[in-house]
C-alpha cells in the first residue's frame, strides 16, 4: 500500500491574539480528494486556523505541509501558489466590480485588462460548466444574492488553480436550496480530485457530505473522526464538552388572543418594486409563527415594516388591537414603548454598534427608556447592571460589560441582541434569523429561550431561512414567495418537501397533499 501524502498537513500551529490563545498546538491532516469538516463552538479558532493556512495571518509557530512538502506560507500569494483557495466567511469581493473583474483581481495577466478579461471569460465558461457553477459573469457583484456571491468566491479560487479549497461557514447565509446546490458543487469538486475543507456549525451538513471531521474547542483540536464512524450527538458532545439536545423539547402551544394582526400589507421599495403584496398574517399570544422562505422573498422587508423601520404603502397592522398604519405612533421608537421587541436579521448591520461596549449596546433602541435615564443623565450604573444580568442569564462570554462588542464572537453577539430584546419583556417579539452563524450549544440555548417566551404568553414571529429551525420551534408556519404569503400551515402538518414546494411558490393544495407522505 503506497502511502499518499496528505493534501494538507498542519503540525503544532500556535497563534495568539494578545491575551487570546486562538490556536494551541493544532495538528491536522487532510486527505487528498476528500471533504474534511471542521466544527467547533464560536470562537474555537476555526477561522483563525484557516486564515493561517491561507497565509492571511501568520502562525506564531508551527509547520504547514502541502502534498508532503513543507510550505513557507506567509502571505496569500504563497498559499495560492501552493494550490490553496479559500472562501471566507465574510466574502472578499469588491461589490462595485463585475463577477469577471472580481475573479481576475490579482491574476489579470497583463497590464491591459482587456486581454485578461477575455481569457478569463473563456476559462470561466469552462469552469462553470465543469462544476455547475452558473453565474452571469458580467453581473455586478453587489447586485447578486449571497448564494451567487459565494459561487463567485469558489470560481475565484478555482480560476487560480486551487487544489485545496477551504470554505468557512459557507452555508451560514444560504437558503436550503442554495446549500444543496453548493453541496452538489462540492461533490463534483471531490470527484475531480480536489480537496475540500469545510467549516460549519451544522451537523446535518457534516454528516451529509464530509468524509472526516475534526473538532475544535477553545483553541485546541480535540478530536478527529471518520464521518462514517460517528453521529450527530457524539459530535455535538465533542464540540461543546457536554451532551446537547439536538431537538427542541416543547409542549403544544395554547394560543389565546391575537396580539399582532396584519391585513393586506403592501410595501414598495425605493426602486418602485413591490416587495410585500397583500400580506395578511396574525400572531396570537402564546404561539410562535415561523416565516419560511428562500431569502429575498420579502421576509426582510416584512420584519422591517413591522419594526417601524420601513413605511408600508398600504394595509393595516394592529399591535394589541391598536391600528398602526397611518398612525403617528408607527415608529420604531414608539413600537418599543408599546411592547414590541425586534431581533434584527443582521446583528452587525443593525443589531449592534460594533465599536460600542457591550453595556452601551444593551440600551440600543431603549436609550430613552426611564429605566436607563436619570433626569438628563444616562444611568451608567443601570446600563452596566442590565448588561451584567443579560450576560449572566444568556451565558455570554466574555463576561465583561465594558468590552467592545466587536470583540465578541458571532454567537455571543447574537445572545446579547436576543437578551436585550427579550429581557424588555415585550408582548410581541419579532426575530430575524435567530441562530445565523451560531454554534449548536448556543442554538440550543436560543431555541429554549424562545419557547420559554412563548410559554409566557408572548406572540413571537420568527423569520428564518433554516427549514429545520422553523419546523422545530414554530407552531404555525407561513411561507413567503415573491412578497406574498403562499400559505400558512400548522407545523404538525409540515414536512420538508411540502415546505420546499411552497417556498417555490406552489399553492396548489392537491400537489401539496400528494407530496405529503
Amino acid at each position, binding site marked *: 500500500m503506497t502511502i499518499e501524502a496528505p493534501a494538507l498537513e498542519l503540525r503544532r500551529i500556535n497563534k495568539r491574539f494578545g491575551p487570546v490563545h486562538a490556536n494551541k498546538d493544532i495538528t491536522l491532516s487532510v486527505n487528498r480528494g476528500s471533504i474534511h469538516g471542521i466544527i467547533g463552538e464560536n470562537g474555537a479558532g476555526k477561522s483563525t486556523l484557516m486564515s493561517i493556512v491561507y497565509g*492571511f495571518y501568520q502562525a506564531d509557530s508551527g509547520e504547514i505541509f502541502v502534498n508532503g512538502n513543507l510550505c513557507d506560507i506567509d502571505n496569500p500569494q504563497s498559499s495560492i501558489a501552493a494550490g490553496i483557495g479559500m472562501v471566507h466567511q465574510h466574502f472578499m*469581493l*469588491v461589490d462595485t466590480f463585475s463577477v469577471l473583474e472580481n475573479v481576475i*483581481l*490579482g491574476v489579470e495577466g497583463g497590464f491591459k*485588462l482587456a486581454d485578461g478579461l477575455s481569457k478569463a471569460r473563456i476559462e470561466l465558461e469552462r469552469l462553470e460548466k465543469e462544476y455547475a457553477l452558473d453565474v452571469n459573469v458580467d453581473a455586478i457583484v453587489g447586485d447578486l444574492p449571497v448564494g451567487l456571491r459565494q459561487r463567485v468566491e469558489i470560481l475565484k479560487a478555482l480560476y487560480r488553480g486551487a487544489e485545496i479549497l477551504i470554505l468557512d461557514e459557507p452555508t451560514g447565509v444560504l437558503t436550503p436550496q442554495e446549500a444543496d446546490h453548493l453541496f452538489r458543487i462540492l461533490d463534483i469538486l471531490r470527484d475531480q480530485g480536489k480537496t475540500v475543507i469545510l467549516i460549519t456549525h451544522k451537523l446535518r451538513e457534516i454528516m451529509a457530505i464530509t468524509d472526516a471531521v475534526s473538532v475544535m474547542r477553545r483553541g485546541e483540536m480535540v478530536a478527529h473522526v471518520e464521518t462514517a464512524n460517528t453521529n450527530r450527538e457524539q459530535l455535538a458532545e465533542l464540540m461543546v464538552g457536554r451532551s446537547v439536545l439536538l431537538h427542541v423539547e416543547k409542549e403544544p402551544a395554547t394560543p389565546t388572543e391575537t396580539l399582532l394582526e396584519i391585513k393586506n400589507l403592501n410595501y414598495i421599495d425605493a426602486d418602485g418594486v413591490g416587495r410585500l403584496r397583500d400580506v395578511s398574517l396574525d400572531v396570537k399570544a402564546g404561539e410562535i409563527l415561523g416565516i419560511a422562505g428562500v431569502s429575498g422573498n420579502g421576509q426582510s422587508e416584512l420584519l422591517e415594516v413591522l419594526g417601524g423601520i420601513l413605511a408600508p404603502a398600504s394595509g393595516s397592522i394592529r399591535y394589541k388591537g391598536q391600528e398602526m398604519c397611518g398612525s403617528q405612533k408607527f415608529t420604531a421608537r414608539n413600537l418599543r414603548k408599546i411592547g414590541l421587541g425586534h431581533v434584527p436579521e443582521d446583528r452587525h448591520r443593525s443589531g449592534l454598534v460594533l465599536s460600542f461596549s457591550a453595556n452601551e449596546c444593551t440600551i440600543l433602541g431603549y436609550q430613552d427608556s426611564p429605566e436607563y435615564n436619570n433626569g438628563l443623565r444616562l444611568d451608567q450604573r443601570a446600563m452596566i447592571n442590565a448588561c451584567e444580568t443579560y450576560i449572566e442569564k444568556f451565558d455570554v462570554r466574555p463576561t465583561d460589560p465594558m468590552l467592545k462588542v466587536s470583540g465578541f464572537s458571532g454567537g455571543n453577539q447574537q445572545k446579547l441582541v436576543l437578551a436585550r430584546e427579550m429581557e424588555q419583556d415585550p408582548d410581541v417579539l419579532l426575530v430575524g434569523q435567530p441562530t445565523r452563524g451560531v454554534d449548536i450549544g448556543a442554538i440550543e440555548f436560543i431555541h429554549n429561550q424562545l419557547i420559554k417566551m412563548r410559554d409566557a404568553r408572548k406572540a413571537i414571529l420568527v423569520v428564518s431561512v433554516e427549514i429545520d429551525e422553523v419546523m422545530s420551534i414554530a407552531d404555525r408556519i407561513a411561507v413567503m414567495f415573491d412578497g406574498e404569503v403562499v400559505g400558512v400551515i400548522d407545523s404538525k402538518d409540515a414536512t420538508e418537501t411540502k415546505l420546499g414546494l411552497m417556498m417555490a411558490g406552489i399553492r396548489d393544495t392537491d400537489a401539496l397533499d400528494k407530496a405529503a407522505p
Partner: protein
Amino acid sequence: MESFQLTILMLDATLRVATPLVLAALAGMFSERAGVVDIGLEGKMLGAAFAAAAVAAVSGSAWVGLGAGILTSLMLSALHAYACVTHKGNQVVSGMAINIVVAGLAPTLGFAWFKMGGQTPSLNGDARFRSIELPFAEAAQNIPVIGYIYAELISGHNIIVYMAAAAVPITAWILYRTRFGLRVRAVGENPHAVDTAGISVDLMRYKALAVTGFMCGIAGTYLSTAHGAGFIRDMTAGKGYLALAALIFGKWKPVPTLIACLLFAFTDAAQARLQGVELPIVGTIPVQFIQALPYILTVLLLAGFVGKAHPPKAIGEPYIKER
C-alpha cells in the same frame, strides 16, 4: 458677434483656470480611489510650484523645473503614504500637516536661496512654458465661428493645458482599462479582498499615491511656470481644496470631475466679468456677492441636481489586516 467673441474668450479663460484644478482633481482621484483621503493636494501643488519655479529660474529650463516640481510632489506624496499607509496615521491630519509644512517651508527656503522675500525670480524665455500656436491657427482666425473657436479657444495654450486635457481620457483609461486601475479601485473599495487576492494593499496605495504626486507636481508647476511666471507664497490660494471639492462633486469619476472643474473655472471667469455690471432690476450687485457666486452656485447644484455620492467604501480607513 462681439458677445460671441467674449464668450469664447471667457471659455478660453475657463480652460486656463481649470487646468490646475483638473490635474489636481485627477491626481486626487488616484489617491482617493485607492482609499486614501488626500487633502494634501494643496500642499503638494504649492511645493511643486515652488520647486519648479526655483529650479526653472536657476536652470533656465521650464522642463527641468517641471521635473523638480514632480519630484517634490512625489516626495510629499511619499511622506503622506509613509504616515497613512505604513504607520496607519490619520489621513486628514497628515494631509493638513503637509499643507502647513509646505506653506511655511517654501517661502523659508525661497528666502534663503533667492533673498527675494520668499519669492522666486520672475521667469521668462525658456524658463517658462509658453503658448503653443497650433498649425493654421493664424489662418483660421478669420474663418467665422469655427475658425475663431479653433484659433482662440483650442490653439494658443501652453503645453500643460493640453496635458490636462489629455489627462482626463488617460486617467479614465488607466482606471477602467488597466490592471493597475482595477487594483486601485479594488483597494479603495475592499482592501481585504485585495489582500486575499495576494496583492499587497500597502504597495498598491503607495503606487496610487505616487501617481497622485506625479500629477499634482504637474499641476503645481503649471501655476508657477506656465500660468504664472514665478513663485509667490501661498500662490495655490485654495486650489487644492477646490480640486478636492470637484473630485467629490464629480463623484470620483473622471468625466464628471472634469465637468465640475470646468464649472468652477467657468463661474470664476464669469464672476470677473460680472463685477460692477449693472443688472436689470437688482442694479449693481455688491462685489462680494459676485465673488461668492461660484460657491453659492456649487451649493445649489449639489442640493438640486447631484444625488448622493458613493465614495470609495474603504476611504479614510487605514488598512489593518487583523480586524
